[in-house]
């Protein structure tokens, strides 16, 4: 199957506008496959942070990309970047999954922790442990905000698009959460 372009067949002007900001004007539009490769780790990181379950995160991530693929013609660059669009789809899929499970996305359970690499320096390990511990005290919305920003690697404008709030509001919320986390780390450290 030809996945060379988001819209199979010809390259539409809309697609030309859908390039990520760092793609120069006039360059080849990004294909869906390229977009997938670029965003898979980030979408997964965000979904996994939200679901706190590796298997569920894989299912939801795959579902999000499948939905995005099937709805790729509905993407309008004027409404935001491809990242914001895709993360919006992933968010809806993740929230639906949480609702389907009938459970609340609380922080009761620890986030899945990756074993630190053997060569990791002690200081870094300690810092990570402190942050993980401080993350437990955050609310789900605050955690989601951090997941979008640091797991998803979205800009504040994209975060605001995904959450349906203003960019200024997104910046303020993000600043508050970072400060809250920083203070919590300081208290624990």
């Amino acid at each position, binding site marked *: 199957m030809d996945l060379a372009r988001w819209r199979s067949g010809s390259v539409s002007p809309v697609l030309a506008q859908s390039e990520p900001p760092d793609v120069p004007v006039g360059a080849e539009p990004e294909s869906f496959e390229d977009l997938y490769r670029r965003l898979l*780790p980030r979408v997964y990181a965000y979904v996994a942070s939200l679901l706190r379950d590796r298997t569920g995160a*894989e299912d939801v991530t795959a579902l999000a990309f499948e939905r995005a693929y099937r709805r790729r013609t509905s993407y309008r660059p004027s409404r935001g970047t491809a990242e914001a669009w895709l993360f919006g789809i992933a968010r809806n899929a993740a929230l639906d999954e949480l609702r389907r499970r009938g459970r*609340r996305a609380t922080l009761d359970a620890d986030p899945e922790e990756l074993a630190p690499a053997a060569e990791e320096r002690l200081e*870094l390990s300690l810092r990570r442990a402190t942050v993980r511990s401080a993350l437990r005290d955050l609310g789900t919305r605050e955690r989601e905000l951090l997941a979008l920003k640091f*797991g998803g690697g979205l800009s504040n404008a994209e975060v605001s698009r995904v959450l349906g709030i203003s960019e200024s509001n997104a910046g303020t919320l993000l600043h508050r959460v970072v400060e809250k986390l920083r203070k919590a780390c300081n208290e624990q450290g």
Partner: protein
Amino acid sequence: MSKAEDRSDSSAERDDALAAVEAALERESVTEVEPDARQRQELALVLRDLSPAPTARFTAELDERVAAGFPRRAGRPAAPDARLRALVPTLLRHVSPPVLAGAGALLVAVAVGLPLAVSDRGPVSVAPDGAGAPPSTAAPRSSLPEAVAPASGEDSSGTRAEFKSGSAPPTAPGESRRRVARSASLTLAAPDERLDAVADGVTRTVERRGGFVLDSSLSLGEDASTAGGSFDLRVPARRLRATIGDLAALGSVRARSQDGDDVTARFVSVEDRLLAARAERRGLLRRLERGGSPDRIRAVREQLELVLAEVRSLRSQLRRLRERTTYAKLSVTLRSDEDAGAAPGSTGAALEDSLASLRMAFNLGVRALGVLIPLSVLALVGALVIGAVRRRRRESVLA
């Protein structure tokens, strides 16, 4: 320090903090020297490093599915709503938005305009053929169309068909219980050479609408000041509006008026009196059957004749009232006027027709907009509400 200054300071502080975070993420290292900013940058890098990564197995599986274009799994056909959702972007892709909007507006216009057109029946264009036949002067009552013939106490054969006591008198189709005698007048102007044709058109229009000409006169001649005519017409009351519309299309309308006289009370009163008179007549007939002395019989007969005369009179009044309400009185005055309009078939008439069509299309468009705009607003509000509710429901798991 004022609140505004406070806000400005905190806003600047926030912007600086966020800028430090962005710088750390971009350069993947701590760049600040100020302790708090440095801490924020370290935190940002740790948070990014803590993000879970997909396994190689999952990535490989998903790579395959993406490369294959997410084939549907066997036995899992696309859901109907998914197919429907897929149809919308396809439509949007192949049909331009203005065309879609136009098609939508057209649909609404048809939906709105058609019932209006059907209810009005619109101005029916009657092209007078100018045969020169003088308009009929008066139509005999027997020529009334059956469907709208006034109901009366007597049927067509002349035998009496009395209303049964207590039952409602028959009414003409479309009549409501309220009885209104309608009348209207219309002054038409037409060029001298078309007067004859227009007069013929008046007669034919009225007959086609189920009415008749009670009286008419037409004067044609060299002197334009005396040329003209008048028509005393009767048309079924429920078709009065449509008939006026048809007649207005025959020439140039100079004046138009309409009037109504509510005769419900009079009608009901006559009806009641008729019922009472009939009851009295039945009583007298029974007394007559019982017999008695010749003087008594004579007295009953005299009384019966009086009652019968009253019944006849009341029945006649009732018939007249019914005719007045069933048929509307329409007076048409025809005037000679050289500026009234072009002859049918001429370029001027064609222009007039095209202008009328444009006017009608415009009116239709305005009516359609009158429906379309509130519907659009409602749809927009509905979509916003539904979207907000869905979002709230979805996000309830984050609470």
